[in-house]
């Protein structure tokens, strides 16, 4: 969607085609390949983008492993969906939040992640959760 009158942000609640824009946050708390949660969440995120919603993704607890660089799933013969996180930008999904405590607990650093993210404290992340219209745990 193009911006009108140079105005930034999500103040234009009514779009001419699709109606209300809600703030959706997907809270990813699971490691990528042991369960189907991470891949399924990614599918729903892409669907929500098709509806021009205000989407953000949070990664905490084992969810931070989803963004680890260098994933090679050939040996376990499943799809490596980690490059998809890099494609999110193309769908105007640019709000990727990673909890600092979760990274540190797992010995990970921001430069070991596959995409640019905003690293923040759990406290800050909790505030962002409260700002949402819809929060989906996955």
């Amino acid at each position, binding site marked *: 969607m193009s911006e009108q009158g140079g105005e930034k942000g999500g103040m234009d609640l009514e779009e001419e085609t699709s109606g209300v824009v809600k703030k959706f946050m997907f809270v990813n708390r699971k490691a990528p390949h042991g369960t189907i949660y991470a891949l399924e969440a990614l599918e729903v995120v892409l669907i929500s983008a098709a509806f021009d919603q205000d989407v953000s993704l949070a990664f905490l607890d084992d969810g931070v492993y989803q963004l680890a660089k260098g994933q090679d799933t050939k040996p376990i013969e499943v799809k490596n969906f980690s490059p998809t996180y890099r494609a999110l930008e193309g769908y105007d999904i640019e709000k990727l939040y990673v909890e600092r405590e979760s990274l540190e607990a797992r010995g990970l650093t921001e430069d070991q992640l596959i995409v640019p993210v905003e690293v923040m404290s759990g406290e800050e992340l909790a505030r962002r*959760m409260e700002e949402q*219209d819809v929060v989906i745990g*996955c």
Partner: protein
Amino acid sequence: MLHIVNKSPYERTALASCLAHATKGSAVILIEDAVYAAVKGGAAEAELKLALGRVEVYALGPDIEARGMKGRVIEGVKVVDYGGFVDLAAEHRTNQSWL
């Protein structure tokens, strides 16, 4: 925000993570295996009591009874029935499930 937790605190970290991110004045409801967190004398009791000063904690009665835990609920945890669960969901602007 109404936080919904359905996993035992002795098997998963969902409750711990939920309590770490629940802001003051929000509510947490324990359902299914998460009701074990509300049972007196367990290792989860201290964690839950600490949270009680900050957030409202509820537990689903039918799930407590089904597990033989009736009458063993930590003081301060409010037991609700299915109707109460629906009321909580309606009272809060948003909810979040901690899977």
